[in-house]
């Protein structure tokens, strides 16, 4: 129990540091959101007098010195109030995030898990059984991984959507359906997700496969595997409980890291497929100097990395009993 408290404490401090840096960093960037907004408003007509001051108030930029701003920022965060977006003025940032984050988490999260599982299973079998198919599988998946991701995505998009119309060109769902828990919407969303998923899985599976296969080979030469064979254990049991169970430990660490990057890791995919996720939103926010939105997305990325690491840290004790004691 003390261990858990200590871990959670550590991650709380890390989160606080991330939040604080997240507050100060944008303020070091030259430029001023009020000026940007003003110039945008003045493009469509002259702004009313005093508009700049009103905007500053609205964006929370007029509250005294930087420390009182910082305090204000923390209080607002506690209420999930991230301010107002400039990109979609005047939509609250929290609302934008709420509408884009699920798209990314569901699509990229599912793909990460699927890719990890397929990679681990194939890697174990390739390491344990070897043979001709494994020799062909490893270079081909490694080749897909080493291709620049956007190139692979564009290639698939060109052939499967543009030339042969198997999959839709872009978007997260068809324009003809409304978002809701209906069959029409869900089937449309799944249909739109297939091609992006395929590209993510193809591009990431090679890494898992190669890592797991190499670790399996290493584990196979361990004495406990030889001993298990001498004891007459069934091959399946040796492969899963003795070889794979030990070989998977390093991959789990890699999996934790990639889970943390679910939120931020697929900006290229969302851009290529115009997918309504948070990566696409981040790109727009940055190009629009949308401080509030950028800041909020960065914060979510940081927290998700921390959160994924915390979960794996806590799980590690179950995965590897040797780490339980040294605490």
């Amino acid at each position: 129990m003390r261990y858990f408290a200590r871990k959670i404490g550590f991650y709380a401090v890390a989160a606080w540091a991330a939040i604080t840096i997240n507050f100060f960093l944008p303020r070091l960037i030259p430029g001023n959101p009020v000026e940007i907004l003003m110039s945008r408003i003045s493009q469509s007509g002259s702004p009313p007098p005093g508009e700049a001051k009103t905007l500053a108030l609205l964006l929370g930029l007029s509250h005294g010195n930087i420390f009182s701003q910082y305090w204000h920022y923390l209080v607002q965060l506690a209420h999930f109030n991230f301010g107002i977006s400039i990109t979609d003025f005047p939509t609250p940032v929290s609302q934008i995030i709420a509408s884009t984050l699920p798209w990314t988490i569901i699509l990229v999260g599912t793909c990460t898990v699927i890719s990890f599982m397929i990679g681990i299973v194939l890697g174990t079998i390739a390491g344990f059984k070897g043979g001709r198919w494994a020799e062909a599988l490893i270079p081909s998946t490694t080749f897909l991984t080493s291709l620049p991701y956007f190139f692979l995505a564009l290639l698939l998009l060109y052939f499967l959507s543009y030339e042969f119309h198997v999959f839709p060109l872009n978007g997260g769902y068809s324009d003809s359906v409304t978002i809701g828990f209906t069959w029409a919407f869900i089937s449309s969303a799944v249909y739109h997700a297939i091609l992006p998923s395929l590209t993510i899985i193809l591009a990431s599976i090679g890494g898992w496969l190669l890592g797991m296969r190499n670790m399996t080979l290493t584990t196979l030469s361990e004495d406990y595997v030889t001993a298990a064979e001498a004891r007459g254990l069934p091959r399946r049991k040796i492969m899963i409980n003795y070889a794979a169970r030990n070989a998977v430990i390093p991959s789990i660490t890699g999996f934790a890291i990639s889970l943390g990057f679910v939120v931020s890791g697929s900006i290229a995919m969302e851009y290529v497929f115009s997918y309504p996720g948070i990566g696409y939103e981040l790109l727009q926010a940055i190009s629009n100097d949308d401080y509030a939105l950028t800041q909020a997305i960065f914060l979510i990325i940081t927290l998700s990395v921390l959160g994924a690491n915390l979960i794996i840290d806590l799980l590690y004790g179950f995965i590897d009993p040797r780490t339980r004691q040294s605490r």
Partner: protein
Amino acid sequence: MTTEQDRIKENIRPDAATDRTIACGPILSVRELNVEYRGEKVTKAVQNVSFELYKGEILGIAGESGCGKSTLAYAITNMLKPPAYIKSGKAVYSQEDGSPIDILELNEKQLRQFRWTEVSMVFQSAMNALNPVTNLKKQFADIFLAHKPDMSKNEQTEKTLRLLEMVGLDKSTINRFPHELSGGMRQRVIIAMSLCHMPNVVIMDEPTTALDVVIQREILDEIINLQKELNFSVIFITHDISLLMEISDRLLVMYAGQIVEQAPTDEIINQALHPYTNGIMASIPDLYGERKELHGIPGTPPDLSLDIPGCPFEPRCPDAFGACRDIPLQKIFLADGSDHFVKCHKYDQRV
């Protein structure tokens, strides 16, 4: 040497099984076994090895490292992995009903059934022979279920506890993980595991080598007691011939992949014939006798990928003479019908 030999003689188990057991016929009979390692040049790790193991005896196999002891142990149980392979030979095991089977001819499924129920092994590296991520209860259960799939959970636990007790471990050990045990405890667990299905033969490959001398002694006593109690046969492999002089009934001395001398242990103690056997015996320190200089054997074992027409020990042998270099060796029996043979031209009247 005499004081040392006398002391060891006194320590020999009074019921040395030699005469008693041979009458029953061998439980394991290895015939003309040849094992090679593939490579740029073929390494002949085990050459024409034949021996018998009788019921209830401890057979010692001694020799320097690199002389094929472990390869022999793995070959007998058909556990060799490439690049090692069995070139020729048989390892005939007499089943309970008396019918012989050649272990080297078994297919994968038969081998799996055969292993651990008939012949089990205690590995050299106790540190690594246990799966680090599961507790002992689970690992014992794996062994039970591999051969008795319908054994109940209670039965498994009960039997595991009994085995742990037998090797002198506390009951609570059952829920421990390997990393929580000391080296000696792990070796005890490994020994307990080898007895899960009460096999007739236990092959012990340097079971005490990685342990300190005090623990070595405890483990050794444990092995001897268990063997007396359960009457299984043991092939005990070690480089420490002094240890074998104490516990084994019969002794094989291996050099360069061959058995160079085989004899009942007390005959080796009294009358070791091969210069190599004498050499390794001369390198044992004497605990009680007067201080004397110890003599190692100068040089190292030969490269087994080279063809050696004569005696492989010739370059290191103090007694070598002309014939040793190029005349092939033969087994020379001490007397007709004797169990004691040596492969040395010194004793060959024809040379």
